[in-house]
């Protein structure tokens, strides 16, 4: 059974490239949303194995979206990994403190992205 990843990012191109990367390299199934609101809706209906969440989004940003996902019984247990252009360790710790499973720095390597996700989530 291939893993199902939900990708929430306001950049269309990044969503597309990330989806191709995860589908081609790892054979996972990827669905995507362009905003926090749409992402939460999709998470409730499709129940993905993990969510890749962009930090900086207009309107409802990544941390706000994460809070709403955690407060919802249906989505509370889905692991969330942040995608961030900020690579400072203080920033990573801040994101971990609000409940992220890990962070991935942008730009990422499309060939190793799936492995990095597996490593963070301890998937075999």
């Amino acid at each position, binding site marked *: 059974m291939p893993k199902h990843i939900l990708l929430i990012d306001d*950049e269309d*191109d*990044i969503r*597309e*490239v*990330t989806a*191709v*990367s995860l589908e*081609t*390299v790892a054979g996972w199934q990827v669905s995507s949303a362009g905003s926090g609101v749409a992402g939460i809706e999709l998470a409730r209906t499709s129940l993905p194995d993990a969510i890749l969440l962009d930090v*900086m989004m207009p309107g409802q940003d990544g941390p706000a979206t994460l809070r709403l996902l955690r407060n919802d019984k249906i989505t509370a247990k889905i692991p969330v990994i942040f995608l961030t*252009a*900020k*690579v*400072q*360790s203080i920033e*990573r710790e801040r994101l971990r403190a609000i409940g992220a499973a890990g*962070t*991935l*720095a*942008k*730009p*990422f*390597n*499309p*060939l*190793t992205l799936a492995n990095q996700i597996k*490593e963070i989530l301890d998937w075999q």
Partner: protein
Amino acid sequence: MRLTVERTVLAGFVIVLALLGTVGIVSQRTIIGLIEDSKWVTHTHIVLELLQQVSFRISQAEAAVRGYVITGDSTFESQYDDIRRQIPELISELRTQTLDNPGEQRDITSLESLIGKRFATMDEGIRAHKSGGLQAVLALGKTSPGRDLGVAISALTAHMRSDEERLLEARNSRAQLSARRAFLVVLSALVLAMIAVIVSVVLVFRDLTRRREIERMKSEFVSVVSHELRTPLTSIHGSLGLLASGLLGSVNAKGERMLEIAVSNTDRLIRLLNDILDIEKLDSGKIEMRQMQCSAGELIDHAIEVMRPMAQNQQIALTSRESELLIYADRDRIIQCLTNLLSNAIKFSEPGGIVKVAANSTGKDARFEVSDKGRGIPEGKKQSIFERFQQVDTSDSRKRGGTGLGLAISRNIVEQHGGKMWVESQLGKGSTFFFTVPLAQEHNSPLEASYGIARSESNAETHPAD
């Protein structure tokens, strides 16, 4: 604007110096004037004293003569002779003291002649007594001008005294005037100097505030630009990487080569972006060194692990010596320094070469060294390579894919640890880069327990592009 402020401040200081110089000169002149005036006061007192003496001696002489003619006692006569002998000395002293004043000199000449005449009348009295006793003296008394002469002498000395007093008064008021003037000059010069200093200080502070503001805006700009560039780069890097991997289908050999070039240059662009952001943050002090006790050997192993793929790619052997040293440092940042130095050493080594890493205690601190057997660094470049975008050869960044910021960043990190970074090198024989960081002894923080987690994260930090 910067130059203008510097010029204004310089002008301010020149003005202050000139004003202080003026104050100095005016004060010196005033003091000399006051000393001069006080000399004049003393002088006046001496002249007054001498005039007093003259009057007193004359009265004494008159008294002695009176005593003699009444009693006929010769003691009075010898007393009179003594006094008479003293008078010329007093007169000559008076003359010396008033050399500068022709009017007074004339008065003294008149005084001298009056005194001469007065003594002549007194001599006459004594002679009369000797020949005809008291009777003869009394007979002489009626015609003698002695009395009138005494009055004239008193009048003249009184006139001379008042002249001298008037002079003193004039000198005093002149001195007061010049002192007042000097005080005004000094006061206004000091006020002007204070204004100049205040204006300079205000300008400097305004300029500093402006510069700080510009610095802040620059740092914010770099941060925003770096973030804004990252977004399109993520898409470019991702799609190129997928295309170059061949997973999406194959292209011909030329196409593959083009993709390879595109990927490696995107990698370089990302490294450059990361380094620019890093150095900006290090420079503006936004990155705090999170120092804790950690093992030098472990940091070296970690850095070697990170750099091993690159070394294998270039057929370079990486070796390290066991190190038990405990240091007090920000482990991620020191790993960043080590990987930067290792990456340079690998880049500038020939295939089959060897790069060594070690850490030793100097007693005072821990000294790391990374050495290669590469082409070496010319003497003239040993300092400049630590500056931003300064490489031994300007084509190095293009040929070898560096950013030209690695050493600047590394040195900055080491300096923020209170350490130093330098290089020893021989052309054609190789280079050794050294840096020092504090030993752990004096810091009692426990060994970082969660270093396993920190390790996997630092990968993302030091090489987010990998």
